[in-house]
């Protein structure tokens, strides 16, 4: 395992908002094809950490390393250019636009008319959006549907499709199943599993431990803005993870400490 470079690594990340410390010396790393679950209570710093990874906030201290190279993001665009995409909790889709327009929003392909006027190449965007959705095995009636006509699960799928449309290496998902009907949750989770087979790394923030245990390879808990515990999924269980969220060390961790002693 040591020979594989992590897709993304955060080392000693701290973030202060005025006098409030949201994160303190947090570390995180993500391997290719890995799904990492990040859990923690409200205010534990999950969202802040993700926003730092996605380029929305600069960290107060610490370093981001992408595939071995230190980077600094000054906007979400920088992060996207380096292959880090975020699927926001509120999805950040424009309901009045077509599916393909949402997938290509901010990165529309253009062609030139009269040799110099760039215009949006709607047909090429629609065709490529269609192909991309097919690759992800997402089925919609037509890419020319407006996003507001879609169900919650379909919207989530479009948000994920947008995140993966441009060679994303890391996809960060903030509560992707929170707003979904139960029968749609499984579809979105299967989609995440599918991404893993493409070598994409996924960071999943979720309050739903069912989701975490269904899809993740590893789970990491934050508590009061610090790394609290982490373990591969096979070496922990629901009750222990619930304990981490509430700030209690579980039996496994306790046992490890005993071993060290």
């Amino acid at each position, binding site marked *: 395992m040591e020979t594989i470079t992590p897709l993304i690594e955060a080392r000693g990340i701290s973030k202060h908002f005025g006098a409030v410390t949201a994160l303190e010396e947090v570390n995180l790393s993500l391997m290719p094809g890995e799904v990492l679950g990040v859990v923690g209570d409200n205010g534990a710093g999950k969202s802040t950490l993700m926003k730092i990874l996605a380029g*929305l906030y600069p960290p107060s201290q610490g370093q981001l390393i992408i595939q071995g190279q230190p980077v600094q993001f000054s*906007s*979400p*665009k920088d992060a*996207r250019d380096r292959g880090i995409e*975020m699927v*926001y909790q*509120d*999805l*950040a*889709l*424009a*309901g*009045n*636009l077509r599916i393909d*327009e*949402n997938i290509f*929003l*901010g*990165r*529309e392909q*253009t062609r030139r008319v009269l040799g110099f006027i*760039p*215009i*949006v190449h*709607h047909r090429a965007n629609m065709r490529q959006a269609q192909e991309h959705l097919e690759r992800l*095995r*997402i*089925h*919609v*009636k037509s890419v020319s549907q407006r996003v*507001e*006509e*879609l*169900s*919650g*699960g*379909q919207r989530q*799928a479009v948000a994920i499709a947008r995140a993966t449309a441009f060679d994303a290496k890391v996809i960060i998902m903030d509560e992707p199943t929170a707003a979904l009907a139960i029968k*749609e949750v499984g*579809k979105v989770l*299967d*989609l995440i599993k*599918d991404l893993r087979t493409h070598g994409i790394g996924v960071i999943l923030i979720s309050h739903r431990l069912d989701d975490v245990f269904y899809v993740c390879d590893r789970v990491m808990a934050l508590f009061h803005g610090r790394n609290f515990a982490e373990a591969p999924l096979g070496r922990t269980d629901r009750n222990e993870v619930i304990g981490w969220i509430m700030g209690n060390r579980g039996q496994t961790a306790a046992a490890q400490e005993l071993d060290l002693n």
Partner: protein
Amino acid sequence: MAEQITELSDTKRAESLRVRLIPYIDRYGVLLLVLVMGITSYILEPEVFLTWRNVSNIFRQIAFNAVLALGEFIVILTAGIDLSVGSTLALAMMATAVLSKAGYSVPILLIVPFIVGAVVGVINGLGLTKLRLPHPFIMTLGMLNIARGATNLISGGVPISGLPDPVRWMGASDIKLGEGIEIPASLLVVVIAYTIIGLFLQYSRTGRHIYAIGGNPQAARVSGINVDRTLILVYGLCGMLAGLSGLLLAGRTNSGFPNAGLGQELDAISAVIIGGASFFGGRGSVLGVFAGALVIGLLRNILNLQNVPVFWQQVLIGVVIISVVYLDVLRRRAGSSNS
């Protein structure tokens, strides 16, 4: 795995037919309204209504409001509002008249209204984005007063009449198409402006970003769109079109007068809303806005032909605005039952 996200197939057929009709009502409803009004007018005044003279008169009268509404539409697309367009129109018109009186040449007089309008608009945009005023209502309400005051300041509060013919051409002259067939030049200006803006909104990246900002500004921001810069451009464009509108009105009236366009922003907003654009942004088309301006013009025309007092016209336009927006509410309700 193969059948991952399929949902629409199991929505009820009847439901989906109604849902499918919505976009068409959405798009062509106001054109239907124009048609109904045209037929009604024809039945009421068969002798007069469809004469070239009356029709071109209607277009001449609506031209400046149609151009004003076009600018307002772009702003409303971003879920904004520009209350200053009436005053901007007056300032642009008066600046042209003042410079004309001072003896400036025709090319300068033709450019000035655009520059004045664009500058006012860009200031609106800067105020909105850089000062972070809570709502465009505030900035443009301030500008409504500032531009009106400036109009009076540069003119001393008195009208200036008499403009050179080339300056008047767009607002006042007719283009002969054949024997007895003339269209007002202002209609041509309107058609060109609508075509350019329509293509811009539909086919340029910035145009699509304007729709995206109206749909969900947060989505636009995280997609890497420079929302502030786009908004400044939008308000600048709106101001520039208000300047063009001022040029048309100056041509038609052969003057600049300080009370020009007083309250006209409300007619412009009415045209946009009647034309099917959503007040919440992201929805509407230039064709709809043109139809909206036409509805107001037709209503005024037929009520004039029927000798209905002007006060009743105002009441009726109010009724039309409320009815049309109520239809929009019904449409939204039908649309949301889908999800």
